[in-house]
């Protein structure tokens, strides 16, 4: 799946990006127990793509998604930028290899960080919808493990930083 994504042209990547954002806003956000596909996308990019691409995509995601939120695009893009930066930093210092344990830990840390930043920036406590919080904590690592498991045949056992 990683090779498949890397082979996309810029046009296809843009289309994929717009579909992802629209799917999150128009479908997943309707479910009480949902997860954040944008966060999963940023974690995926932080692990597989270049730092610049990860930061740009995180920032753009915040700008696009923020148009549907009252707080606007600035706060959300800043939030996602922080998350992307943090993920890149801890990947460089602690999670060198693409082991399942590392992916699970990285996703859990990302979810906790996102919830903390949402609480800090927007005043929305994770306890308000704790069922959604637990669901996201479960589903995010699961989806990432599935994505990276399907790329098992590729020689990506070590990511050079």
């Amino acid at each position, binding site marked *: 799946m990683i090779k498949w994504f890397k082979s996309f042209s810029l046009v296809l990547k843009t289309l994929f990006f*717009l579909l992802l954002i629209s799917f999150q806003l128009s479908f997943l*956000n309707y479910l009480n127990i949902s997860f954040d596909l944008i966060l999963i996308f940023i974690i995926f990019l932080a692990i597989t793509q270049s730092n610049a691409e990860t930061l740009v995509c995180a920032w753009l995601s915040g700008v696009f998604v*923020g*148009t549907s939120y*009252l707080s*606007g695009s600035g*706060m959300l893009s800043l939030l996602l930028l922080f998350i992307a930066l943090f993920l890149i930093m801890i990947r460089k210092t602690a999670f060198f290899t693409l082991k399942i344990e590392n992916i699970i830990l990285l996703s859990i840390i990302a979810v906790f960080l996102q919830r903390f930043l949402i609480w800090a920036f927007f*005043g*929305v406590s994770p306890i308000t919808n704790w069922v959604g919080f637990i669901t996201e904590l479960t589903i995010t690592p699961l989806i990432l493990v599935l994505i990276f498991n399907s790329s098992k045949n590729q020689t990506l056992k070590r990511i050079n930083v």
Partner: protein
Amino acid sequence: MFLISIAIIIFDQNYIILSAGHYINDILEPFENLISKTRNFLFFWQSALFNIKMLKEANVRLASENLELYGKLKNLYLIEEENSDLKKQLNLLERSIDVKRAEIISRDYQNNRTFVINKGAHDGVTNNMAIIAKGDIIIGQVVDAGYSTSKVRTILDVQTKIAATTLNSRTTGLVRGLGSDIVFELIAKNKNPERGELIISSGTDGTWPHGFIIGKVGEIKNDRVFSSATIEMLVDIKDLINIFVIINK
């Protein structure tokens, strides 16, 4: 990118930044429309399949209630006719509102404080227009009308404040959003609203139209200076798909 984000936060009411936000919404709109239509189709059939027994029981109950309502409707029709005649005699204007039907195409993540509808300035929607659901129930207010989409702040949001009154006991107060709920507060100590009584917008704040339903009085709490009451909402904003924008009052 940090600097651009900070600039967006500081100058969020700037014309260029607002226009850019509207353009982004216009780009996302066709995708959101398609996905929301697919979602509505899937959820409808999923709900129908899982709730067949419940639907059958509800159908039988509603058929019986329908018969009772026919009787009440006949009386209501007679009262409306009489009311209309009396208004003509007194030269009073009939109340009329223009509404535009819209569909919710996206909403915020795990909250119900904001959503986006598929109608904008092109359709006559402007900022501060009230949004209602079927049954004249207030849902929110347009806060950012783009060309073909508009952002709506729901009554659950903490910035929402509506001057309200109860239907029977005529108790005035203020309905305020708490983030995940709404509360009816600033009730004078000498007033006694009844539990289950309807709360409607009084229109005295000049922002919200008069006479629209907000909810029902829930648990009443007596504080030192004022009383307050929880509000039972009549619709779950999460389940709404179609809403109406009040174009003129």
